């Protein structure tokens, strides 16, 4: 890329942020349909830990994935602060990600983002399954780990067998 292009049109990306196990994560806004407070979940026995269960979102049954489990943290019960990050149908139909706390929408420049593929995002502090994290973004006061929902779905498929 020529530097000229970068100057004339700075590429920014927008993320929906949330917290899991106190760490900051973000999903690109185009992958997210809504953030819901509906977290009443019916567990699905026999499913792997990443599957938190099923919930009823406006009369549609949604699959709820537990991001704690997905990112390798200990699973915990939901709280009043828990949120469901519902993915766009294009990513996966009727799937929501259960997170500990909702956050803001942030806009970051492309240069702030580092691809995590190379170093496996080892900084994710004990995240033993870094595959869902596709990048790291340096914000003013902390790091935001970028979650790739498509990889997450793939991981779920694999886990279910």
């Amino acid at each position, binding site marked *: 890329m020529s530097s000229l292009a970068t100057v004339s049109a700075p590429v920014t990306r927008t993320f929906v942020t949330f917290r899991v196990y106190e760490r900051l994560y973000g999903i690109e806004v185009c992958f997210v349909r809504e953030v819901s407070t509906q977290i*009443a979940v*019916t*567990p*699905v*026995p*026999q*499913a*792997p830990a990443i*599957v938190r*269960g*099923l*919930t*009823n979102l406006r*009369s549609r*049954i*949604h*699959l709820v994935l537990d991001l704690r489990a997905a990112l390798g943290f200990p699973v915990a019960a939901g709280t009043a602060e828990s949120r469901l990050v519902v993915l766009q149908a294009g990513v*996966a*139909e*009727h*799937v929501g990600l259960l997170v500990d706390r909702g956050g803001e929408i942030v806009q970051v420049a492309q240069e702030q983002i580092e691809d995590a593929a190379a170093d496996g995002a080892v900084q994710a502090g004990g995240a033993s399954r870094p595959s869902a994290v596709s990048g790291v973004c340096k914000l003013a006061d902390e790091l935001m780990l970028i979650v790739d929902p498509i990889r997450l*779905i793939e991981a*779920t*498929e694999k886990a*279910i*067998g």
Partner: protein
Amino acid sequence: MAAESNQQQRFVVEAREHLAALSAAIVELERGASDPAEQVARILRSAHSLKGGAGFSGLTTIERLSHAMETAVENVRDGRIAASAEVIDTLLFALDRLSALVDDAEHSQGADITAPLERLQPLVAAGEASTEPAKKISARQITPSQASSTPRTTTLAKSTAAVSEFPISPRVLETWERHASFLYGVKLDWFEAERDLGLSPLEVARRIERAGTSLDARMELTGLTLADGLPTPPLWYWTIVSSALPSEDFAQQLEIPCAAIVRLESVANKPQEKKPEGGAQAGPRGPAAGGSLRIPVTLIDRMMSLAGELVLVRNQAKRSTDAGVDTQRQLLRRLDALTNEMQDAALRMRMQPVGALFDRFPRLVRDLGRQLGKQIDLEIAGADVELDKTVLETLADPLTHLMRNCCDHGIETPDERGRAGKSPNGLIRLAARQERGQIVIQIKDDGRGLDRDAIKRKAMQQGVKQRDELDRMSEREVNELILLSGFSTASRVTDLSGRGVGMDVVRTNLEQIGGVVEIDSVFGEGATFTLRLPLTLAILPCLLMTSEGERFAIPLRDVEEVVLLRSETKARIECADHEEVLRLRGKLVPVMRLAEVLRRREPFSADTCAAIADRHHGQSAELTRGYVAILRFGALRFGMVVDDVLGSEEIVVKPLHPLLRRLGSYGAATILGDGRVVLILSCEGLARHSGIVHRQRREVRAELPAAAEAMETGALLLFRYGTAELFAVPLGDVRRIVSIRPEQIERVGEREMIAIDGTPTNVLRLDRFLRVSGFDESRGSFLILPRQAKAPAGFLASEIVDTPTLDLRLDDRAYRADGILGSGLILGQIAIFLDVFRLIAMWEIEHGVAPAALPGPSARKRVLVVEDTEFFRRLVTSYLAAEGWEVAAAGSGAEGLEKLNAESFDAVVSDIEMPVMDGLTLAREVRRDGRFDRLPMLALTSLSSEEDRRKARSAGFDAYEVKLNRETFLETIRSLLTSGRPAALVAGGAQHE
């Protein structure tokens, strides 16, 4: 791009219908149909529609091949070639290729169709080479019968016209007097008219006006510039003419031999949503009454799910409505009725005639017959019976397999048939009919039938069953062994049925849609396969239950019954050879625990089963509580232990999330009235996961003394009042059932009355006493008159369902209210057992019909009822309590004895057959004890032989009543209570033992 593929998809759906019709018609033609002309017309219509649709969708390869077929069949129609076996074969060959192209429409464009085209070539050429000078006017579009009788001949008419060439504008529709005239499309070439016939444009116009009224006209003048000189032939002219003349007369009157004529009424009468091209409407099908519309399935599904939501809302509304308020009840009743109707309409939208599927079988049977050297006739009935689209789709494979199986294994060769004294032609009857909310499809052949001895031998060889098991199986059970996977008795495997697709596929596919297969056969005379299918899938009555605090649903159709586990009595889980079994009416039924199955991701190994069995039985079995749902999966019956049963509910099935489909234990999911998601268990998945399917020992008969397992049965009257519930009362309590007309019911103050045989009789409405759905007048109106009521009264019923004699097992968890004895699973549905006498007493109190004055406490007699069957215990208690006596109940002889020791009673009523301590032992114990010398005892039992009576007497009973005539029972107990123990017996205390 998307639009194009949508169009292609629509084409494929439509094309399959045409292909099926084509196939049926061709085979019909070959079989020597009584109406060959109609079959040919059918072929032409379908081929033509196919061609049109393909052309419109840009699928030119399919278009070319269907065109060739159409042309070939035209030559058959016009008598230029005969419909010989060879011609039929060629047509079928082309049809196969066409089907393959349609199946993969996306890639059809590049496909090689030279082979079918080459084979069709001579048939197509027959027309061109024909020396027949005359081609009938517009023979292409006027139906054969009309065409062949057209007297006119001309050498000139080469032009043809398609309906699609005449777009009908709204203006035409307005001016066309549809009731008084036909609508024709006329197409001609000005040049031809002028040059060959000498008809000037003016003359043409005049002739057209002579034959009818021109409503619209159009000419093709593309690229005409004066610089190019005069237009070159042909110069086409299209006009739409309305005329009162039928087609032959019209053509005659028109007298323009070069014109092509088509009939347009059917198109004009169609809703205008039609496609601009595609001759689907070209056929002479009459205008459909009321019209029809093509609606995407997705939209219908959406409608279905909305209707389903509405059902949920209604259920919620029901629960939160105060049943006491009249206006609310009325509103609710209307909501109820409307919801039901809407749901019904929504379901109806998904229905398709089963004929769409049946159409493929004449061809299949014909081909198989040829391949196998057999002569097989196929008779089809009930092709217009409608089935849910999904059910129909799932049915295709199993039905095809069964048909193959009939042709291959069922029907014998002509030689064999001859030797067996049968006609050389085998006959397969395929019939569909609707029967009690189910669709029944039957395939019946007159072939060799099933050889049950061979099946048994094979079963033993494969180790599926033991000889003693086989000996105990019914004929049908033996027949159904062929549905087990890997089970084939055919001595030789042909390439037809033996392609690794076993009969088990039939069963599994059917089970997916909640269907079952039954097989009946008389060896040497044929076999009948009966498929029973649900009308629709989307709404499913389910049993709701809990396991480890979570709710689960299981389709009621999979549930045979629900057994309450009681540690002290007969329903007990035992451990046999590291496998858990339930002793149920003398049989050992394999059992699995839902909680254990759901806890483990991996399918069970034998070790897992053993570990579970040992864990639950290492400790005291007394701790076992809960329910066992007896489920049926194909020929397999097994029990599923759950913590609690919540009752049954009609639920709207939602598909399982795609990511979860690999978990076999669930079939689908649903959203309940409280908004929570609940998983619907798959009976099959559970059976597989828990390894029950692999258990060596399936259901076996337990060898135990019958006494401990005596089952109480009784005759019941089953009826309905509202739409939802099924009610049961003991038939013995019913004096009479009268069919009435609702308008005969009169309101007298607070009461409703009707004259029965001149006696004013009170009408009791169940929804006044119980929280049940409102009266459903649409089914009918009956009054059930109980045996005894102080004031004449009867219960209103909408439908008398049945009077079966059934096992009586009550489960009081689902429904418990004053006036209800309990509930039980009858015929796959939860039935509410009414306490008739309590209900009447409730009504009498409400309406101030004073019940007979109860004796004061001091004078009140106390009766002890000893009875192990909950149903009878409650019933007898209710009888006695209604008489004003105080009643205590015990579930076994031992318990009864305890009560006798602790409290004082004036009489004992005891069952004889009971676990732990039976009635005879109880009586002996009582009589042995001097304190009870004067205590009268009455035996109330279903045993009725003289021997039983004698035994009871000698054990110490004073009276003997057979279950259960309320009046004689009460009379006997009354006399026992007033006159006490017959003196002779008191004196002869030594009589016992």
